[in-house]
């Protein structure tokens, strides 16, 4: 049955198999004449007619059958070599033969049409599905356009041109006139559509819902006869699907952008509130110190006030650059400004800053020779380590040393900032990286550092985390054996730049 259906789906382009079948049938009838009676030979003719109708159109098949019956009458029905029929039963036989052949021809032809339509429908469904799945997996609209163009071109064998949104062909473009004409129309235009039949190409609107989101042109064909072979409605279904998918992706992107914008807005608001709050403290201190300068002539007091102002402005400066950097990282769609940096120099820059700000503190450093270079944004990484050192100094007693170390581990580079300070409770190890979070003084137990913890706005570590993430580096906090905190920053192994060492 399957093979019969497959046979039915074949196109009727070639009549040769039918002719061959008729010749074989005729040969068989002539050969068996005299051995079989007339009725059996007539059945042979019906078989031949049925088989031949697979390859012929309904009309051709009926005509062929009629001719065959006439020849059968001429050669085989007594009296032979006349169209005259001697017996009534033979007449009945011929009539039945003609009727049966005609009926079979018509039925076969219909069945074949049906099967072909079904096959075409299956093909179309398959096309729609293939198109939909390709378009759904596309990440961008331009990718979708590319996929749709490739597939349609493949299926129709005609060049496809697609304009989206406000895109339009230049005036010199060969399709400019066709495109212009289609803008005035609701539906498809081109050969066979009844609108602008003369333009030689089909132009269809890309319509998602009621919105026109673009225009698609099919053609011009290298052979002008190719165009009408593709049914317009089938093409329209594919074009509609393309339009829907493009529209879906576009609106999805739009929604995501809106959400991002909203989120950014919320973050900005929180940030602004926190900043303005945290700027007040140092500003108030500076104001106080400055006004006391106005009134006093005592040298010791003047020096104290000046020292206070310097410290507080330094603090303000740090907050400002953290805030700026945070804002920069937040809006950073562009890649980082990375260059090849040596670990030694990064540590050196951090140390130099820390020593200048805290000349009386003990800061240890350990950087082994021969570490790999680090592809990173040096300003950001220095700021990260700088914040970590500043935290370590702030949260540990003045007589305790803090340390900045770096070491290599199978190509990866790990920085560590260690202190003997008050430590961070384990449940806060992750939370301290959230913006505006600080370990509250009461959760720490005591301490003589209440003054220190009051300061800062909890943006420092959040910035550190943001910088680490931007570098795909890992930043985490551990308890240090023997008390205090260890903050680790680990960069993954990087392929080192090409370098030809010089002979010593």
């Amino acid at each position, binding site marked *: 049955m399957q093979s019969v259906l497959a046979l039915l789906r074949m196109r009727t382009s070639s009549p040769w198999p039918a002719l061959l079948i008729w010749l074989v049938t005729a040969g068989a009838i002539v050969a068996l004449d005299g051995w079989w009676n007339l009725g059996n030979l007539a059945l042979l003719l019906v078989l031949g007619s049925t088989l031949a109708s697979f390859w012929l159109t309904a009309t051709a098949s009926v005509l062929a059958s009629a001719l065959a019956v006439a020849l059968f009458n001429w050669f085989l029905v007594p009296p032979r070599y006349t169209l005259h029929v001697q017996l009534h039963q033979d007449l009945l036989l011929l009539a039945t033969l003609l009727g049966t052949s005609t009926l079979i021809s018509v039925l076969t032809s219909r069945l074949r049409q049906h099967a072909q339509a079904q096959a075409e429908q299956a093909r179309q469904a398959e096309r729609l599905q293939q198109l939909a799945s390709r378009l759904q997996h596309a990440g961008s609209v331009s990718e979708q356009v590319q996929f749709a163009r490739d597939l349609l071109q493949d299926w129709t064998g005609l060049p496809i041109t697609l304009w989206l949104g406000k895109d339009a062909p230049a005036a010199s473009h060969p399709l400019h006139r066709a495109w212009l004409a289609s803008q005035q129309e609701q539906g498809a235009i081109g050969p066979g559509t009844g609108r602008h039949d003369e333009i030689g190409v089909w132009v269809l609107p890309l319509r998602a819902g009621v919105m026109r989101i673009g225009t698609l042109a099919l053609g011009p064909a290298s052979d002008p006869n190719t165009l009408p072979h593709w049914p317009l409605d089938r093409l329209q279904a594919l074009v509609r699907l393309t339009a829907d998918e493009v529209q879906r992706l576009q609106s999805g992107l739009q929604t995501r952008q809106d959400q991002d914008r909203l989120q950014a807005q919320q973050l900005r608001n929180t940030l602004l509130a926190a900043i303005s709050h945290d700027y007040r403290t140092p500003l108030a201190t500076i104001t106080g110190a400055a006004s006391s300068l106005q009134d006093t002539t005592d040298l010791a007091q003047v020096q104290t006030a000046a020292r206070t102002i310097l410290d507080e*402005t330094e603090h303000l*400066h740090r907050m400002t*650059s953290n805030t*700026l*950097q945070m804002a*920069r990282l937040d809006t950073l769609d562009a890649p980082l*400004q990375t*260059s*090849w*940096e*040596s670990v*030694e*120099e*990064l*540590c*050196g*820059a951090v*140390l*130099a800053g820390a020593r200048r700000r805290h000349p009386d503190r003990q800061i240890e*450093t350990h*950087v082994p*020779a021969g570490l790999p*270079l680090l592809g990173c944004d*040096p*300003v950001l990484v*220095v700021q990260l380590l700088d914040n970590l050192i500043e935290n370590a100094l702030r949260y540990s007693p003045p007589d305790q040393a803090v340390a900045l170390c770096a070491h290599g581990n199978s190509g990866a580079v790990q920085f560590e900032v260690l202190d003997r300070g008050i430590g961070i409770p384990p449940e806060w190890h992750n939370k301290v990286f959230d913006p505006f979070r600080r370990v509250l003084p009461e959760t720490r137990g005591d301490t003589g550092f209440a003054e220190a913890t009051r300061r800062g706005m909890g943006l420092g570590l959040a910035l550190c985390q943001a910088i680490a993430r931007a570098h795909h580096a890992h930043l985490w906090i551990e308890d240090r054996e023997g008390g205090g905190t260890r903050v680790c920053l680990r960069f993954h192994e990087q392929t*080192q*730049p090409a*370098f030809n060492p*010089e*002979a*010593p």
Partner: protein
Amino acid sequence: MSLHVLLVEDDRQLRQTLQAALQAHGYAVTGSASRADAEAVLRHHPQAIDLVILDLGLPDADGSELLAGLRQQRQTPVLVISARHDDAGKVKLLDAGADDYLVKPFSVQELLARMRVCLRHRGMAVQAPVLHYRMNGLAVDVAAHRVSLQGEPVHLTPTEFRLLARLVRQAGQVVTHRQLLADVWGPEHVDQLQYLRLYMGQLRAKLEARPAEPQWLLTEPGVGYRLVEAA
């Protein structure tokens, strides 16, 4: 007559503070808030300008435009002052002929020290090029290709030596990555920052006791290197 400094800074508060501080140290200071004004001063002021202190962000132009215009006509030393988050701008200015830069906020002491280096350097530039360097036990004789540390000779590779000699030529001043790469490795290598990082590492390993805290070969993050000014 005291040295004449042109201070180009659009922030009135900072300009007045610096002006007062510099005047207190014996400089004659002319303040300028815009490019147009600064150019007028440079062209028409009766007393020639000995040093320009230039802020990057001006209301009517970028500091670099003023610098470019200035460099076409004269060799007056230019000291750039800038905000930190603009490394690219600083580098561009240094490459375009600025003598040094300072990051805001800075102390007046540091500004005065950098000004002295700039002025001294210009004084030397018209005399012989710097061929000898001696500071804290490090001695470099460029002409004789000799380097010694605490009296002990140090063996450097030819590239290491060229790098050190280039820094000696401008001791006390920052030399940008581009300048170093172009002068030591050649103009086609100005983007191979890794060469510089690796050779500077080797050089420090041979000269510095604690390479992460160098006493001679200082890092200017994102900009370049500076050899400490000889005493």
